[in-house]
């Protein structure tokens, strides 16, 4: 006796349903961009978009790491401070004369190490991620001021090249090397999430951690891995930031974690975990970038109106995203 099939239509018609939130976000982003173009002539320059990638590269990398964490239903508040700490440590080590490559390696190890420890505390001692990563945030920020209370400039040749090399026509449009690194990170992350067991386990844990455990999935390993990945992404982000600013400053990237979380969530990832895409996160970051660009291009807002308008645009965006998303579901 066969149970009746109740599928609601051919599978191609249903497939995009999962992608509706991302598509809606993309459409709204384009709408917002065209508003910018219609209002400000220079907005249509390709370089404006390139600049968003240059300026938001490190944020995007960090947001990719955060996507992993949020997909498991966790949260990582330490990212901003880890970014700052990585930049600070690099600047400090370079200042003390270590070779660039060694500095790079050390700097790239600190973030994941801290992430690993936080992941262990979260998993083995069953402490809420919020609080563990908050402690991580205090720690990393404390390390920054501990290393030096003022900013340290970087003069190393390798760093300068990475910072100032322009790919593209030097007079026309260009991107920085950082942008390429960013794109590489995005692609690798998207691949890992979609095509590897680790990636799928991340989604499973986000869906229901208890079920994932009972289904025999490596919950411990995956949990710890996502915080380590987030730490690694923050470290890469920190390096990119140090390319970007050619310095380590103790107070840089304060409050960045909120921007990062906002970008991830705007990109359609659900905070309770289990659903979302890296591509959505890219869109989320672009949304923040376009909002910021709109504000600078306008150039007539005073300080408080800037904040109110940022909040207002964010609200309008999310509202439309939500309303249109519901309609198409």
């Amino acid at each position: 006796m066969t149970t009746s099939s109740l599928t609601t239509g051919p599978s191609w018609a249903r497939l995009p349903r999962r992608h509706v939130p991302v598509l809606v976000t993309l459409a709204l982003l384009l709408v917002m961009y065209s508003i910018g173009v219609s209002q400000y002539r220079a907005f249509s320059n390709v370089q404006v978009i390139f600049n968003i990638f240059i300026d938001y590269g490190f944020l995007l990398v960090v947001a990719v790491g955060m996507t992993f964490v949020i997909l498991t239903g966790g949260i990582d508040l330490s990212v901003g401070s880890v970014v700052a700490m990585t930049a600070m440590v690099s600047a400090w080590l370079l200042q003390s004369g270590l070779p660039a490559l060694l500095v790079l390696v050390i700097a790239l190890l600190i973030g994941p190490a801290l992430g690993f420890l936080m992941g262990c505390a979260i998993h083995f001692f069953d402490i809420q991620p919020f609080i563990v990563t908050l402690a991580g945030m205090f720690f990393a920020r404390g390390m920054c001021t501990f290393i030096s209370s003022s900013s340290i400039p970087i003069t190393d040749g390798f760093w300068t090249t990475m910072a100032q090399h322009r790919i593209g026509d030097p007079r026309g449009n260009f991107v920085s090397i950082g942008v390429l690194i960013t794109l590489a990170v995005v692609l690798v992350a998207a691949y890992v999430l979609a095509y590897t067991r680790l990636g799928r386990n991340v989604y499973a844990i986000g869906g229901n951690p208890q079920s994932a455990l009972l289904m025999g999935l490596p919950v411990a390993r995956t949990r710890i891995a996502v915080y380590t990945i987030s730490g690694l992404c923050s470290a890469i982000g920190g390096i990119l930031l140090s390319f970007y600013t050619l310095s380590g400053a103790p107070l840089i990237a304060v409050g960045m974690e909120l921007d990062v979380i906002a970008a991830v969530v705007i990109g359609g990832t659900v905070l309770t975990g289990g659903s979302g895409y890296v591509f959505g996160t890219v869109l989320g970051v672009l949304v923040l970038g376009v909002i910021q660009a709109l504000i600078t291009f306008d150039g007539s807002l005073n300080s408080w109106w800037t904040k109110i308008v940022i909040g207002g645009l964010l609200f309008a965006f999310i509202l439309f995203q939500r309303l249109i998303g519901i309609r198409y579901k």
Partner: protein
Amino acid sequence: MSERLKPILSHRLFWPLAVLAVMVVANTIYRPGFLAVEVNNGHLYGTPIDILRLSAPLILVGLGMTLVIATGGIDLSVGSICAISGAIACLHISEASDQNSLVTVFTALAMALGAALVLGAWNGVLVSVIGIQPIIATLILMVAGRGLAQLVTEGQIITINSGPYRAIGLGHFLTLPLAIFIALGAALLVAALTRRTALGMIIESVGGNREASRLAGIRSSRMVFLVYVVSAACAAVAGFMMTANVSSADGNNAGLWVELDAILAVVIGGTSLAGGRFYLSGTIVGALIIQTLTTTVYAMNISPQTALLFKAVVVIAVCLIQAPAFRAKFGRRGRGTPPPAAPAQPRQKEEVTA
């Protein structure tokens, strides 16, 4: 351990209180005068009093935050709401001809509280009606709210000179700071509202499983809406205290990062960010721990450069010592009776089936 100690040791508040005690003891060892309280101008004066007074705003914000978190939400906008309400109140008072008039002060408070309620309702609508994720819904107001506060103050610090308003932050009653009584009163009010009525259980039920609650006949959306309004109201009163404490409204700095401290207090107090059970008393102890920690940094003269490292260490220590899993692993040194093994399960998260 002796049988008599067991119920005490297993009480929810035991470990947070123990941490608090350890911090106080450490301070007293460092500076024996730490606990000294003297009478000054007819008021009690001393570090413990300071801690109580300064933690009052945090307790208030924490109370509202506890309810929000109990429904599985989060409210990042409380800091901005503190700033806005403080700014509105101070602006109104500063424009009045007689700043000391009680009528003026009460109008100012009413206006500011009204504005805060509107903002809370805004948050509530975004979360419960439109269905935006709480963190992002309240982030909007967190960003824009600072702007609103500065719009009110026009970016300046509004200094006022109003005795009655000052009293909210600095006044005394029965030799103790009035702020303590306000916070305590609010705590009792919230506790009565939630524990004397069925509200607390209903909120916990919504936080524990929203769909199941809806099917049991609870108006889940209405509850969610309500907690954001309450949270905003608590934040508004906290904002009055913060501004009254320095007799001035600073749109940019008032209540800056208080949301993080409040969430931390709630979590230290034993409420899970996933929602469900909430513990008001835990939040109060959590707020006291955080304020004591800040004061310790000042009192022990820890250099600003390392202050954050110190905080990190204490926070992680507080969490570890509270975590049953940690105690189970490292606490069973003694051969005696092994404590019952905690189930090796992660905190259960309810399945969200579409």
